[in-house]
């Protein structure tokens, strides 16, 4: 954060990001940070020292990761937008999109279900899924494959979450006049609505789920020089809440009259899984093929 110009302010900001850590760990890490800052400041000046370490929230996250407490941290670290949505903790800070993105495609790790999805409780490692389905080998795709994904493909990928989130906005806008003041807000196991809320609140939250993360993340990843890997993984990470948002918006509109059009939660979850998988697998296939072409090697068909 550019507003921080003194060592004390930086250390204080990192301390906030470390809330909940064991006091002894925290104090040790902060003491180390402080002496590092003073050391750099002596040579390069305070402003340069503070700037060199980057965002204090990310620095704190780094400390947590090093201490092995990262999974607990995301919901409470830092002053950036975060909180609870529909009872689920969310965390759409820029840095976390990258961190979660890395878990979305990690072919080397055989675990398919990784802790935490984009601040929403769980993550699917689509890379492990592709390996398990024998679509690729654990070491086939790397940073090089991401870099060789055609620019046009990345453009399409970046448009996907945006189009989905905007579709939800358009649907709500079209239906708005017809909608009753109170709309379903919660559904029972049977698929019938069992709780209602004002349409402003219900749709406000649902649309925010899709739009807010995009609005926060896109300005950063559209910047020139952003690695292809970050762009692809961010687009995928953002497609997940966008699909959930669109799905629940459709369900809410369909059941607005109080009836039940059947439990669609499974369909929504399925879409939220299949779409990101395709968004990763297809572009990476392109990238992999480009790598092979460059090395003048070809797929001989069949599986090993």
């Amino acid at each position: 954060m550019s507003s921080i110009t003194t060592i004390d302010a930086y250390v204080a900001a990192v301390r906030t990001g470390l809330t909940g850590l064991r006091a002894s760990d925290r104090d040790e890490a902060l003491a180390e940070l402080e002496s590092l800052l003073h050391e750099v400041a002596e040579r390069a000046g305070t402003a340069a020292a503070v700037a060199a370490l980057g965002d204090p929230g990310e620095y704190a996250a780094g400390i947590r990761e090093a201490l092995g407490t990262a999974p607990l941290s995301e919901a409470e670290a830092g002053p950036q937008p975060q909180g609870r949505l529909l009872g689920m903790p969310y965390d759409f800070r820029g840095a976390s999109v990258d961190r979660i993105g890395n878990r979305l495609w990690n072919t080397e790790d055989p675990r398919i279900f990784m802790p935490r999805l984009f601040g929403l409780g769980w993550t699917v490692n689509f890379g492990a899924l592709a390996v398990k389905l024998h679509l690729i080998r654990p070491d086939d795709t790397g940073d090089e494959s991401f870099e060789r994904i055609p620019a046009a493909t990345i453009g399409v990928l970046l448009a996907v979450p945006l189009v989905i989130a905007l579709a939800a906005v358009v649907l709500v806008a079209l239906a708005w006049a017809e909608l009753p003041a109170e709309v379903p807000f919660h559904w029972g196991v049977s698929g019938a609505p069992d709780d209602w809320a004002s349409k402003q609140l219900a749709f406000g939250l649902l649309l925010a789920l899709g739009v807010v993360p995009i609005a926060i993340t896109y300005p950063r990843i559209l910047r020139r020089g952003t690695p292809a890997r970050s762009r692809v993984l961010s687009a995928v990470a953002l497609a997940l809440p966008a699909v959930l948002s669109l799905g629940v918006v459709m369900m809410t509109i369909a059941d607005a009259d109080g009836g039940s059009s059947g439990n669609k939660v499974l369909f929504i979850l399925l879409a939220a899984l299949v779409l990101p998988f395709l968004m990763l697998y297809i572009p990476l296939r392109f990238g992999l093929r480009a790598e092979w072409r460059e090395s003048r090697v070809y797929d001989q068909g069949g599986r090993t």
Partner: protein
Amino acid sequence: MAPDNDSRVSQFRKGALELGILALLDRGELYGVEIVDRLAEHSGLEASAGTIYPLLSRLKKAGVVDTTWRESPVGPPRKYYQLSEAGRRELAGMTRSWRDLSATLDSLLAEGADR
């Protein structure tokens, strides 16, 4: 903070695995599955693909190994791993450290057994 015992053992094993992989690659290039299989032939060095692939990726990032795509007689091309120049130096250094450490421990343990 002292690491707990489990993580100490796993750190130790990771070091041994790394040396094992470098030693295998010193004899010639191998692809991922071959490395997993060859290690499994050596008692004590068996490790799951989930352990070995992240290790290979770390070695590649560190510049210790290089990779080359080669056609496979069946199926898609395979990624082969070779020792880089830095990898050869790393292997020589690690081999020395390992011999020193194991000689020291051997003599220490032998003294214990004599008592």
